[in-house]
């Protein structure tokens, strides 16, 4: 390190891109765009129980496990074994890391009652210990939790102040990345104003209780030389440690697959132009009993049928109840549960705070990454928090799932009022609205596609029918009498079917009539042909008769001539005439004359 130290904890001069040390804390590295400033000191401020120590420990453990940087923990709060006990449940084996010379824990328990201040002093032992530990381990990270206890301990706080300033500079010179923690103060950020020395990066942790539900929040107040998210981000202390949940809009960079997947309802797929995009978010909102859960069940059923994993999270019903209810409409999810493709998880919204719900989702999808997730009854979460927080939590759930390419369908109870869903709807890609309409003494369900991003979708209303083979969509009749659904639609369908049958009957009859006429005319045609033939035959007969008579006449003449002894024999001309007559008459009697 070149040691261009000025005042405070500025550390070595940074190049154009500030080098960063990842904290390994999910979300925090995203907000800080890479982690804490490398080779500098960051301040983590929070009241008691806000999670300062855990943040620091996770920073150290991640440094050791993931980034090959041994670390040193200086704690003024608790004995070393107590610290180790506290984080063992998170899977941090501090004692093991110490045995492997990857971690050094310097625990100081200073009791003001046994200390008597007698004049000028310095904190050189702390420097010596740190120096020894850093050198021995080759440490790259140091956490001091919380150094503020030194104030008021030795009488003269101006000396403590000066020593802390010196310590901050010294850590910078050593090139280690450090976190010092501080108690939240009333007037200044920290109780003793140590933010005056630690000026590169300041993170504030907050812990609020609202309606008996606790919410933890983190904010990067300051980060010199680096862009960072400035919002308050909820975080939680889960079974895996400190998890920060970046809200939407930090990164809107999910991949946008063109692939569409089936909703499990053919006609709905058709209305949406072939299904929903993989990795998109679908909101199904509607009043109670409109079939929202059924649509969700179809989606997971279709996913499992494709051999994909699915996750069904219910905030309203128990898994056995869901299985039973869906079986009653012909969707049998049990085989998918048995084969492990489908995981059903249920929890009452009030079981834990919103952040914990979010953590559960994060954990579930990490344990067994699904391709499709259904969040049934997200509005129920309102019982576990207040309105805007619910929206933010749901948004982060969508965010979390979409960022992993998981198609998410959330069902939400509205109160027949589209505007109540507006806050959530902006975060979804497809919004299906289910409505009950009551006409003619019955209630029927209607489905609208309110929006579907990136899709030419149908603007038609469909009637939504729950059959024993699941959900079906049926055209509704819109005419002068208004929209027809349910039995009115059925009546209309019956009427149409009757009319069609009548039309068919008429046509058949007409066809039969025509066939009769044709047969009749063909018979006529045959009769006429017979008559024609008969008349032709008659003509022939008449012709033949005529020749015969001619021949007879000639024969008579000859006979008479012989009888009369005429001296003239019939001449050549007469013989020719005879021959001609024979030719003309055909077989009609010529032979008779020869």
């Amino acid at each position, binding site marked *: 390190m070149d040691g261009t130290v000025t005042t405070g904890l500025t550390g070595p001069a940074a190049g154009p891109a500030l080098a960063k040390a990842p904290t390994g804390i999910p979300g925090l590295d995203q907000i800080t765009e890479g982690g804490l400033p490398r080779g500098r000191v960051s301040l983590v401020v929070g009241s008691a129980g806000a999670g300062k120590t855990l943040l620091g420990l996770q920073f150290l453990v991640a440094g050791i496990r993931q980034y090959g940087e041994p670390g040193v923990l200086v704690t003024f709060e608790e004995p070393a074994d107590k610290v180790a006990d506290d984080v063992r449940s998170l899977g941090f084996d501090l004692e093991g890391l110490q045995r492997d010379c990857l971690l050094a824990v310097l625990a100081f328990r200073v009791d003001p009652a046994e*200390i008597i201040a*007698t*004049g000028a002093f310095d904190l*050189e*032992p702390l420097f010596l210990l740190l*120096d020894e530990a850093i050198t021995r381990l080759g440490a790259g990270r140091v956490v001091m939790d919380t150094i503020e206890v030194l104030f008021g301990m030795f009488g003269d706080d101006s000396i403590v102040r000066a020593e802390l300033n010196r310590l901050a500079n010294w850590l910078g010179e050593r090139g280690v990345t450090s976190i010092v923690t501080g108690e939240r103060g009333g007037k200044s950020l920290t109780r003793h104003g140590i933010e005056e020395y630690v000026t590169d990066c300041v993170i504030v942790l907050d812990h609020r209780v609202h309606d008996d539900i606790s919410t933890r929040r983190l904010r990067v107040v300051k980060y010199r030389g680096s862009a960072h998210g400035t919002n308050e981000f909820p975080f939680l202390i889960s079974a895996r440690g400190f998890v920060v949940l970046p809200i939407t809009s930090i990164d809107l960079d999910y991949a946008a697959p063109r692939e569409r997947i089936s909703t499990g309802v053919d006609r709905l797929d058709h209305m949406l132009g072939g299904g929903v995009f993989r990795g998109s978010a679908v909101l199904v909102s509607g009043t109670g009993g409109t079939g929202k859960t059924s649509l969700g069940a179809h989606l997971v059923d279709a996913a499992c049928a494709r051999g994909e994993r699915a996750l069904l999270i219910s905030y309203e019903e128990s898994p056995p109840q869901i299985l039973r209810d869906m079986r009653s409409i012909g969707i049998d999810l049990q085989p998918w549960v048995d084969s492990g493709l489908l995981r059903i998880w249920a929890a009452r919204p009030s079981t834990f705070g919103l952040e914990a719900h979010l953590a559960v989702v994060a954990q579930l999808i990490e344990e067994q990454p699904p391709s499709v997730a259904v969040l049934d009854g997200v509005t129920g979460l309102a019982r576990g928090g207040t309105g805007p927080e619910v929206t933010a939590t749901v948004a982060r759930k969508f965010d979390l799932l979409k960022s992993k390419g998981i198609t998410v369908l959330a069902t939400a109870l509205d109160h027949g009022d589209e505007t109540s869903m507006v806050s959530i709807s902006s975060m979804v890609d497809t919004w299906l609205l289910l409505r009950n309409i009551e006409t003619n003494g019955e209630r029927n369900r209607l489905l609208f596609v309110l929006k579907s991003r990136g899709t030419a979708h149908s603007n038609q209303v469909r009637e939504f029918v729950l059959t024993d083979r699941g959900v079906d969509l049926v055209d509704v009749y819109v005419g002068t009498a208004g929209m027809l659904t349910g039995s009115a639609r059925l009546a209309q369908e019956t009427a149409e079917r009757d009319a069609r049958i009548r039309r068919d009957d008429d046509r058949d009859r007409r066809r039969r009539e025509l066939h009769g006429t044709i047969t009749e005319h063909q018979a006529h045609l045959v009769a006429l042909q017979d008559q024609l033939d008969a008349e032709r035959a008659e003509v022939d007969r008449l012709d033949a008769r005529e020749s015969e008579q001619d021949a007879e006449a000639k024969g008579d003449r000859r006979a008479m001539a012989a009888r009369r002894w005429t001296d003239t024999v019939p001449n050549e001309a007469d013989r020719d005439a005879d021959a001609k007559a024979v030719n003309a008459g055909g077989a009609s009697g010529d032979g008779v004359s020869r």
Partner: protein
Amino acid sequence: MNLPSASPEGAGTADSGQTWDLRLYVTDQSPNSVRAIQNLRRLCEEHLPGRYRIEVVDLRENPRLATDDQILAVPTVVRRLPEPVRKFVGDLSDTDRLLVGLQIRVPGRTAPGRRQT
């Protein structure tokens, strides 16, 4: 200074038989350290002649002793005996506090003793 650089400067059991066992933590020859050593020796000679033992420990030679004995600041004097253990942080220029703390003098009737130093 060698470690542990015990330098017993008096082991007498003059009055009550009580011996003051004192350990002074310093870091090499820093001005505070030097002043503390001088102040402590003078005080002990004045008020506890023959009844004290001073051990000077230089943390620079073995920093790890600082965690063992929970020493954050120097100079620090630890009164190991008589019990209870007490820690005196600073260069010991505040003699009154030191004398009271060492239980060499009872607070109420020490006002005249001021001039003794």
